[in-house]
């Protein structure tokens, strides 16, 4: 765990950490003094001074800050400079894995194993685990959809959950009034999500960055408020209950069977999303999205219709939210506006940013981490959200680009094609 990269001798560097950590812990002690030390009893009118608590705060902050500083320093020094024996072994094993994956037999085996895991999961994990995983998969679809807008198109959209709500409500209401079944509701939900996304896209075409964020945020809130207050249509805050679960005609499923069934619907939907998003990404439209994100002025100067490209990203993104919304409504059998707060939008945004903008495996990992971690942290009860926050901050500090960062695709040009191209060019003046 030693580092030879920095010129400063180690003991002195650790001493420097200690000094700063001490400052941090003293500052923290002062900051938390009123709530940690003083306890006022308003009934008896007495104050209890709990001085021992300060010891815990100072000690804990000191150790935490020291460790933080240590890892931050290592990160700054770069991976190569801090190759301890553990790191070296890790890097070596990573290289072996990377090499193995390239072998077709291993890759096929890996896919088969993953497939087996995915199929076996609901039967091994039980209903509780399957339910959690289904929620996580919903967020995977939402994350991948939002990724089209943010990760590829570079538009900071904070109102994404509104389309999810619209998808859910379109199934719930169409079913309530016209008895539309789940399977027909899927394309309808996607259409509604996509169209509404386009509809709010048109007025905000000129907006970028923070301004777009504010407008989309407002849109999400408006959607929620309309759902809450338009009682004659949406049943207001009371919500809609008894929404039918997905079913196959003529077969009666028990509750655990339905849970498994929904899980597999979500698996298929995730597979479809990955397929479509991947194809979009590696196409003309995907290139336009990324170019627009990188530099919209150069992009339009190169002949790309920015307005059309923006709308395409919004429409394609909104569709997935609508689709996921239908599944959500069918799964919970009850929806009300409280399920679609801005907080949900923020979570989806986090899955994209945390996972790695524009990267499909990144967004999937991000969604799984963000949904599963708080679930499994339930054991820590009231510290759950505190730990969750700490995990987020740590990840963003140490991997600001996301868990799995996007790599641009490399194109191969055959030697023969190179020669043809080379004849056009003049070898006399090479860059």
């Amino acid at each position, binding site marked *: 765990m030693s580092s030879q990269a920095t010129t400063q001798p180690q003991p002195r560097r650790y001493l420097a950490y200690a000094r700063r950590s001490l400052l941090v812990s003293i500052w923290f002690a002062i900051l938390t003094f009123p709530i940690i030390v003083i306890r006022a009893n308003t009934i008896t009118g007495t104050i209890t001074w709990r001085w021992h608590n300060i010891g815990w705060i100072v000690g804990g902050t000191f150790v935490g800050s020291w460790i933080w500083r240590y890892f931050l320093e290592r990160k700054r020094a770069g991976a190569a400079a801090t190759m301890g024996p553990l790191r070296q072994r890790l890097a070596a094993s990573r290289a072996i894995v990377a090499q193995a994956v390239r072998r077709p037999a291993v890759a096929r085996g890996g896919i088969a194993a993953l497939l087996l895991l995915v199929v076996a999961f609901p039967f091994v994990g039980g209903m509780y685990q399957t339910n959690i995983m289904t929620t996580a998969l919903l967020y995977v679809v939402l994350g991948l959809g939002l990724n089209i807008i943010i990760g590829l198109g570079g538009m900071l959209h904070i109102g994404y959950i509104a389309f999810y709500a619209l998808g859910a409500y379109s199934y719930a209401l169409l079913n309530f009034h016209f008895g539309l079944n789940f399977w027909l509701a899927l394309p309808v939900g996607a259409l509604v999500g996509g169209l509404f996304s386009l509809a709010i896209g048109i007025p905000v075409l000129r907006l970028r960055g923070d301004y777009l964020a504010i407008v989309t945020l407002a849109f999400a809130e408006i959607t929620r408020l309309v759902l809450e207050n338009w009682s004659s249509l949406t049943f207001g805050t009371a919500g809609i209950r008894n929404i039918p679960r997905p079913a196959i005609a003529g077969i009666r499923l028990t509750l655990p069977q339905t849970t498994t069934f929904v899980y597999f619907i979500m698996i298929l939907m995730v597979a479809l999303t990955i397929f*479509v998003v991947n*194809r*979009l990404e590696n*196409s*003309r*439209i*995907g*290139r*336009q999205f*990324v*170019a627009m994100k*990188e*530099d919209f*002025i*150069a*992009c*339009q*100067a*190169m*002949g*790309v*219709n*920015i307005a059309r490209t923006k709308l*395409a990203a919004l429409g*394609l993104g909104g569709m997935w939210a609508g689709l996921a919304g239908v599944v959500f409504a069918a799964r919970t059998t009850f929806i009300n506006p409280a399920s679609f707060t801005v907080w949900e939008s923020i979570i989806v945004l986090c899955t994209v940013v945390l996972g790695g903008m524009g990267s499909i495996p990144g967004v999937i990992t991000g969604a799984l981490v963000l949904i599963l971690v708080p679930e499994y942290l339930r054991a820590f009860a009231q510290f759950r959200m505190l730990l969750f926050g700490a995990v987020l901050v740590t990840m963003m500090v140490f991997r600001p680009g996301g868990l799995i960062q996007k790599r*641009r*695709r*490399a*194109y191969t*040009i055959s030697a023969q*094609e*190179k020669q*043809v*191209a*080379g004849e*056009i*060019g*003049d070898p006399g*003046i*090479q*860059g």
Partner: protein
Amino acid sequence: MVLDVRGLTMDFGGLRAVDHVDLQVNEGEIVALIGPNGAGKTTFFNCVTGMYVPTAGTVTIARPGTDARQITRMRPHLITAQGLARTFQNIRLFSEMTVLENVMIGRDCRLSAGILGAIVRNRKTVAEEKQVVLDSYAMLEMVGIGRWANETAKNLPYGAQRRLEIARALATEPFLLLLDEPAAGMNPQETRDLVALIRRLRTDHHLSIFLIEHDMSLVMTLSERIYVMDYGKLIAVGDPGEVRRDPSVIKAYLGEDVSA
């Protein structure tokens, strides 16, 4: 005449950045627009390419062999599709994309694949994508940076980034190429290579070239006609020799006190 600008005026609030400028570029010509900093050259460029909507005046272009067509107030991507392509003074590449992808974006306005094609990947889309890669690679070879095709654009050396901007502009199949300070920040050797490249582009691709430049040696050796701007107004037009001797140009560049 491939470019005909009449009475172009651009106001920013109370400031008149470009004041009734008339400018023409003939087929196959290399024309330069020079002037001190802040003279309104780049603003003029932005008006011609549709980045700004001019306050007054008209811009007309004509692809050789076709009828003239007014492009004033047209949106930038449509102007590019008409056959006008530009580079930027402060390089504006898609820096996180690869070099090849940058050029592929340049090809974009000549493509027809849609969203459905991208998902279904029908034969036509696949063929088009393949052709784009090849065409774009050919563009890179033409400006001499083919070996960096799969590098991330931001990692290229400075001179190569300038070349990549030119390749990207060429990919749009222009008949008129507008270069905004193409030699800015280049060393003498790079500038010489650039002059050769621009000349070759003109002859090989039947391009007309309109450039803004600060590097006087480049302007004087390369351009056939020079327009000089100062404070938004055109103060001189002529071949390099004439412009160099023009007293008003000398005054604009060197100040009041120096006489010719």
